[in-house]
C-alpha cells in the first residue's frame, strides 16, 4: 500500500509542481506573486477541453494548444495587470491586488461562458493498467507523470543551456545588472510570464485528463496549493518548486492513507507542513536567503 500511495502522491504532486514552477518563475523575474495563475491554469484546461471535446483533437495537440492558449493569456496578463504597475515604481502590493482582480474577472467570465459545473473531458487513452509488482499504474497516471517530468526536464534544460534561459536567470538575479549587460529586460519578462503561463496551462490540461473533467472553478484550489508549494520550496527556486510539489503530493496521499481520522484535514496538510518548515527555515527548503526584500 505504501508504494501505491507513493505513486498516487507523486502523480498528483507532479501537477502541483508544474503550477508551482509557474509561480516561481514569475516571482523570480518580477518579485511578485501572480494571483491570477490559478485561473491561467484553469483556462489552459478549458482550451484543452475545447480542442478535444469540441474539435476532436488528440491529447498531444490539445496539450500544446492549452499551453499556447495559456501563454497568450500570460501575455495579456503582463500587459494589463503587470507592466503598467512597474513603471511607477510602486510597492509589490499593487500588482498583487491587480492580479487578484484579474483572476476574479477570468473566473467569472469563464463561468458565464461555460457554467460552473465540471465538463466531462475524455481523452482517448487506453484504459489499461500497468502492473509492476505491488504497484498499479493506470495509463492516465503514467501519461500525467510522464508529461510532467518531460516538461520539467525541458524547462531545466532551457534555463541552463539556452540563451533565453541564461537571460531569464540573469534578470531573476538582478534586473538592473542584466539591463546593463544588454539584456532586453522587458522582453525577457514577457517571455518568462508566457513560459510560466504555458506550464500552468499544461498542468491544467493534465489535471483535466487525470480527473476526466474540467471546470471554471478548478483554479482556486490548485492555485492555493501552488502557493504553499512555492514557499515550501523557496521562492524563485525552480528545483525547489519541483521538490516541494512532489513532496506535498506524497504527504497528502500519506495523510489519507494512514490517518483515517485525518483525511478530512488533507487540504490543511500542505499548509501545516509548510508552517512547520518555515519556523525552522524561514527561506523555505531550498530558498537562498531569508528574503531580504521588505517591499510590503
Amino acid at each position, binding site marked *: 500500500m505504501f508504494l501505491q500511495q507513493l505513486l498516487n502522491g507523486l502523480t498528483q504532486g507532479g501537477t502541483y509542481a508544474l503550477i508551482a514552477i509557474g509561480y516561481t518563475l514569475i516571482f523570480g523575474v518580477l518579485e511578485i506573486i501572480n494571483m491570477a495563475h490559478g485561473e491561467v491554469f484553469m483556462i489552459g484546461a478549458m482550451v484543452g477541453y475545447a480542442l478535444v471535446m469540441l474539435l476532436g483533437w488528440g491529447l498531444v495537440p490539445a496539450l500544446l494548444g492549452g499551453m499556447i492558449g495559456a501563454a497568450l493569456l500570460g501575455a495579456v496578463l503582463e500587459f494589463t495587470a503587470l507592466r503598467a504597475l512597474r513603471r511607477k515604481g510602486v510597492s509589490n502590493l499593487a500588482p498583487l491586488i491587480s492580479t487578484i482582480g484579474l483572476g476574479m474577472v477570468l473566473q467569472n467570465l469563464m463561468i458565464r461562458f461555460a457554467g460552473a459545473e465540471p465538463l466531462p473531458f475524455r481523452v482517448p487513452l487506453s484504459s489499461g493498467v500497468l502492473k509492476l509488482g505491488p504497484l498499479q499504474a493506470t495509463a492516465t497516471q503514467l501519461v500525467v507523470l510522464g508529461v510532467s517530468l518531460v516538461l520539467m526536464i525541458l524547462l531545466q534544460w532551457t534555463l541552463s543551456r539556452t540563451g533565453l534561459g541564461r537571460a531569464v536567470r540573469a534578470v531573476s538575479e538582478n534586473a538592473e545588472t542584466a539591463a546593463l549587460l544588454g539584456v532586453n529586460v522587458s522582453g525577457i519578462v514577457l517571455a518568462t510570464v508566457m513560459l510560466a503561463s504555458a506550464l500552468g496551462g499544461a498542468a491544467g490540461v493534465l489535471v483535466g485528463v487525470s480527473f476526466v473533467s474540467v471546470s471554471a472553478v*478548478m483554479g482556486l484550489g490548485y492555485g492555493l496549493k501552488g502557493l504553499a508549494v512555492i514557499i515550501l520550496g523557496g521562492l524563485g527556486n525552480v528545483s525547489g518548486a519541483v521538490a516541494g510539489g512532489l513532496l506535498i503530493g506524497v504527504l497528502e496521499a500519506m495523510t489519507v492513507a494512514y490517518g483515517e481520522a485525518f483525511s478530512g484535514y488533507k487540504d490543511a496538510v500542505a499548509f501545516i507542513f509548510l508552517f512547520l518548515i518555515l519556523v525552522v527555515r524561514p527561506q523555505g527548503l531550498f530558498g537562498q536567503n531569508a528574503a531580504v526584500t521588505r517591499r510590503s
Partner: protein
Amino acid sequence: MRKGKGTRIAAFGVALAMTVGLLAGCGGGKEASPQSGGTGGTPAAEAKPLKVGAVFILSGNNAGYGLAQRPGVELAVEEINKAGGINGRMIEVTFEDSQGKTEEAVNAVRKLIDKDEVLAIIGPTLSGEMSSAGKVAQEAGVPILGVSTTAKGITDIGNFVFRNSLPEAGVLPYTVKAAREKYNLKKVAVLHAANDQFSVSGYNTFMEELKKQGIEVVVEASFNTGDREFGAQITKVLAANPDGLVVSSLYQEAALFMVQARQAGYKGPIIGGNGFNSPKLAEVAKEAAEGSIVGSPWFGGRDDAKVKAFVKAYTEKTGKAPDQFAAQAYDGMMLIAEALKQGGDNRDKIRDALAGIKNYVGVTGQFAFDENRNPVMTPFVLEIQGGQYVELKK
C-alpha cells in the same frame, strides 16, 4: 508629494464613495429584474405585478447549483405568465446572488424584502445560508421556501420557513433498503466529502440508517469537495473488501471517484446520497457509473406528461437536462404561485396558503407540507443502466 493632485484625487475618492452610496440608496425601484416570460399585452398588464424574490449561489465555487436552479424558477414564471398570470397579474421575480457567503445571503434577502418588497422568497441554496437568511425572513414576516436545503431542522427556524427539498432523512432509508435487498449487503465502506453541507448531513443520515438496517460499516474514508484524486482513499477502502460502497458527496467528486475505483478493480455496487442526483454523474463517469443506486425525489425519465414537458422545456432553454436542483426550484416556484393565488398581496395570507398545500402534483410527484412545513413525498429509488437513471429493478 504632489499635493494638489493628491488632494484632488482624495476628494475624488471620497466623492466617489458618497456617490456610490447615494446611488445605491436612491436606486430603489429600478432594479433590473429579468423579463417574466409572456408579455401579457392585455389590460391586465396595468395591474401591479406580484413580486417574488430568489436567492441562489450564482458565482464562485458552488455556482453550479444556483445556475441550475435559476432557469427552473424562470421556466415556471414564464409558464404562469403565459397562461395569464395569477388572477390576471404577472409574476415578477428578482434574482440575487449570495456567492455562497453568509454576509451576502443576508444582504440579498434584506434587499429583496426592503428594497424590492417581495411577497415571498425562494432559496437560498445552502442550508447554512438558510440558517441565516431564513431568520431574517422570519423576523420580517416574509415566507421563504428552501428548494435545496436538506439539513436537519431547517424549518425549526420559524413558521415562515418552508422547504420542498426532501431532506436526506426522508430519502436514504428507501435507498439503503432497496440496495440491501438487491445486493444482500452485509458490510460496506462509507466515504464522504467532509467539507460541504450536503455531503456531511447525508453522511450523518447514512450512518444512522445503515446501523438501523443492520449493515456493518467496515471502513470509512473522507475527502473534500473539490478533490479530484482519490487514489489514497480507494486503496484504503478496497483493502477492507466491502460488499458495497456508500458514498455521500456531490456528483463531481462521486463521478471521478467511481472512475478511479473501477479502474482500481472494484466491481461491486455503489450507493449514493442526494449528491448522485444528476445526469452529469453518468456523463462524467460513463461505464464506471453503471449500477449505481440513488434515491431521489426527482426522476427525469418518468413516463409522465408533466415531467416530459418540463424536461423538454428546460433542455431547450439551457441546453442541459434538468437535475434535482432544477426540478425542485421549478416546483418551488409553482408552490409559491399556488399560495399567491389565495394570498394575494398579503404575506401572512401567503404563508398560510403555503402551509395549507396538501395535495399538489409537481414534476417531482405528489407533494404536501406537513405541520412542520417539511415536504411529504415518497422518493424514487433509481439505478443507472446504460448511462441513464431508471427505476431500480429488484
